[in-house]
């Protein structure tokens, strides 16, 4: 350990705010990027699944009313 105590580790001889701000922003952005990517993958997966289930149900009944067959599968890019 390069520091004598925990408080010295936090303060870092006055450079603490700079160092910790950088590490905090880094952690938030990298974690955010990962979580966002996982969530988006999941939501695309779910949307596809809903669509396929819906299609499978409808394939038996081709005379469905048009207004009732609309399912949104386009996934927003963000």
């Amino acid at each position: 350990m390069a520091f004598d105590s925990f408080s010295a580790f936090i303060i870092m001889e006055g450079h603490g705010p700079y160092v910790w701000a950088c590490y905090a922003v880094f952690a938030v952005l990298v974690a955010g990027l990962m979580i966002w990517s996982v969530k988006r993958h999941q939501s695309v997966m779910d949307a596809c699944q809903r669509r396929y289930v819906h299609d499978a149900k409808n394939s038996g009944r081709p005379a469905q009313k048009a207004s009732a067959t609309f399912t949104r599968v386009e996934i927003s890019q963000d």
Partner: protein
Amino acid sequence: MWQWFHKLGSPKWFFGIATRFMPWLLAGGLLLLAAGLTWGLAFAPEDYLQGNSYRIIFIHVPSAFLAQSIYISMAVAAVVTLVWRMKLADVFVKAIAPVGLVFTFLSLFTGAVWGKPTWGTWWVWDARLTSMLILLFLYGGVIALDRAINDEKSAARAVAVLVLVGVVNIPIIKYSVDWWNTLHQPATFKLTEKPTMPMEMWLPLLLSVLGLYLLFGWLTCIRMKTEILIREQRTRWVRELVMAGGK
């Protein structure tokens, strides 16, 4: 070799490979990054000149490395898109452009915060900092252009051309500190030369760089898989895969 190249172009084949590699990339990346950053933050000795503020290097340098590597890999994919019209190459560019944007922002941000206690200023318009800001705008431009064009094929080609045009910025970033007078110092972490720091500072930096590369690999896999799902949702293999629960 060409057979391998065409196999790589198959979304189905890629999907399977990515799914297999992802747990390893994630575990390895998190482990190396955690080890490197803990070592760098708490155990590496302080610098004789900058004291503890130099500890920002352990995130600044990996972010900057990735920001540039991602752009270079996007440029390679752009050539593949333009010459071979391979769909997967375009999927790759689309999937990782936001990742590149985030890491470019991170290297600029951490650099600014590091500059304040060491140089005495957050920002200076020297060649290194300015060319890095241009890289940020290039990433933004790539993302915006891709969203602005609805037709998938036109978007792929337009984006590929923009990426290729921007690639001249990469050598400028790399050599800016050697070609011109800048406030930014020359590179610390070079793969080809003897490191300019002792092992107990260099090793944690190496671990962080490797860890972040692995995490980037994981991000690439999951984001490309998402993009493939959207594009190939009408194919049979995606249908079977989704109905089987994504396995």
